[in-house]
């Protein structure tokens, strides 16, 4: 450890620092993932995986074609897209607006609101699900409330197959916006206060400060939140699983749930389930590449 230029010390240090994380990561995530992609190309249906008595053979992209032919796959995928659009165009702007409000001290009780908005993430999905089922039930308080105004009101919120996902989206906005708020807030607080001060002395109004100073400074953050939103929405599972399990008639299903239904319900269809998860990863990977490209093209201008 004497000389800091000796390359073997560098190598040894690098090795020591990286090895535990890399080993665990490859064992727990990378290997099972490769395994899962491989399974998606086989006809494995439970049983022995390795050795002479191995119980499977390669069948090519058969399961992917099965997946693309299934109408419920497309319904689930469409819902993922809705969730993604909602995250990108409601959660992120809302998270930013709220963070901005708190940052610019436009309201009183900032600390309180900050605490509240991040709090949902610690409430178990199960609580959220039972509560919302109770509220949205045809015999729940929302129905009672609406009937105060219109005694003949029928609770058809989830009976329109195209709108059934709406209550779920609504809950998602509440459940996850806090994370974006916190990210924006933390980065807003890193903006040099002197620049803002100078701008204000120069007579810049709120809007000019927002568009000319603050937003440009945050362009990188927007990209990162967009990436989080894209991967998060393609992965979304827990909340929907607990709230609707994809019903009515799979109209609120998402890819992860569609996969779960195939892997763990009834007679398991592992290859199809693995084809779905491979598809999910591929799509979010592609979308993230596109986001990065857009960043390079447009973000660089500022």
């Amino acid at each position: 450890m004497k000389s800091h230029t000796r390359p073997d010390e560098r190598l040894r240090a690098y090795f020591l620092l990286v090895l535990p994380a890399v080993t665990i990561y490859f064992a727990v995530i990378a290997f099972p993932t490769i395994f899962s992609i491989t399974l998606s190309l086989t006809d494995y249906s439970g049983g022995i995986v390795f050795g002479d008595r191995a119980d499977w053979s390669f069948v090519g992209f058969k399961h992917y074609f099965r997946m693309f032919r299934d109408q419920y796959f497309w319904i689930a995928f469409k819902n993922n897209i809705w969730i993604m659009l909602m995250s990108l165009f409601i959660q992120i702007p809302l998270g930013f607006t709220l963070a901005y409000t708190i940052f610019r001290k436009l309201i009183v009780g900032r600390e309180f609101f900050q605490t509240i908005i991040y709090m949902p993430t610690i409430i178990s999905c199960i609580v959220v699900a039972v509560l919302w089922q109770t509220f949205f039930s045809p015999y729940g308080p929302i129905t009672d409330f609406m009937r105060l105004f219109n005694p003949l009101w029928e609770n058809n919120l989830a009976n329109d197959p195209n709108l059934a996902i709406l209550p779920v989206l609504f809950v998602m906005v509440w459940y996850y916006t806090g994370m974006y708020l916190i990210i924006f807030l933390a980065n807003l607080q890193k903006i040099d206060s002197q620049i803002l001060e100078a701008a204000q002395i120069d007579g810049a109004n709120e809007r000019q400060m927002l568009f000319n100073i603050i937003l440009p400074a945050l362009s990188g953050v927007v990209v990162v939140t967009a990436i989080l939103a894209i991967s998060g929405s393609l992965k979304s599972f827990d909340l929907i699983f607990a709230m609707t399990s994809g019903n009515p008639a799979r109209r609120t299903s998402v890819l992860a749930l569609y996969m779960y239904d195939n892997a763990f319900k009834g007679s398991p269809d592992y290859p199809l389930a693995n084809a779905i998860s491979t598809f999910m990863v591929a799509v979010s990977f592609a979308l993230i590449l596109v986001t990065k490209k857009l960043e390079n093209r447009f973000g660089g201008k500022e």
Partner: protein
Amino acid sequence: MGFKYGRLGAKPTAGALIGRTILVLILLTFTVMTIYPILWLIQSSLKTTQEFQMNRIGLPIEPTLSNYPLAWKIGGFTSLFLNSILYTSISTIAIVFLSLSASFAFAKIRMRATKFLYQSFVVGILLTLQSIMVPLFLLTNMVGLYDTRIGILIPYIGLGLPMGVYLGTEFIRSIPDSLIESARLEGAGYIRIFISIIFPISVPVAVTLAIMTVTSIWNEFMLINILASKNSIKSLPVGILKFSGALSSDYGKQFAALVIGMLPMLIFYLIFRKHIQRGLAAGAVKG
């Protein structure tokens, strides 16, 4: 901050006033939507199942605490609770420590392997737990770690690493190189630099990571349900899940169980909330 941003004192225009009102309304909606479920959960846990079924929204007519001891006893919560604490604390410490050490190497030691290794961690953020559950189960069995505490801890640690390495690397990259170079000139090795310089600076990101890990592992139930079969090594969410099956009808005890599971997190969150926002993005993103 010496500079006063205060806009409250400035004379607002009509438009700004409307905008501000809308914002306050949104914030109040969030507040109600967050506090109400918690209060509702607590009040529901004071109802018997039969009362809950007939009176889901109102206050309990005959409040009872009996759900708590019953849920605790039936669920066998003593050992579940201890296990949850064990899994959460060990995984959190390991994730923070391993992530930061790898992050330091990725961010500050030039190696050709870094690009590939770092990218593969980032891809890991995109993966869903469901997609690796079956292979992971087979693997755990093969290496003989099935139904052991270590066989649960290792996957927990592995699942937390991608986010940890990502946040850590981005953060440590923003630390000036000069800090490390001067330490190198004084003859410090990389490991020493990591422990005495990088780690202390990285506290905000470590705290963030810790908070994210603690809440997610405390509530995790899919993986442990697959990887554990002995009751003696299961965790709290598995016990709570016992009360919330599709065919289950015992809401009272289910809610009591949920309160038992939520309280430690609520306390934890209220204590550490200040650190969250300081850390969550401290370096997460280069502003």
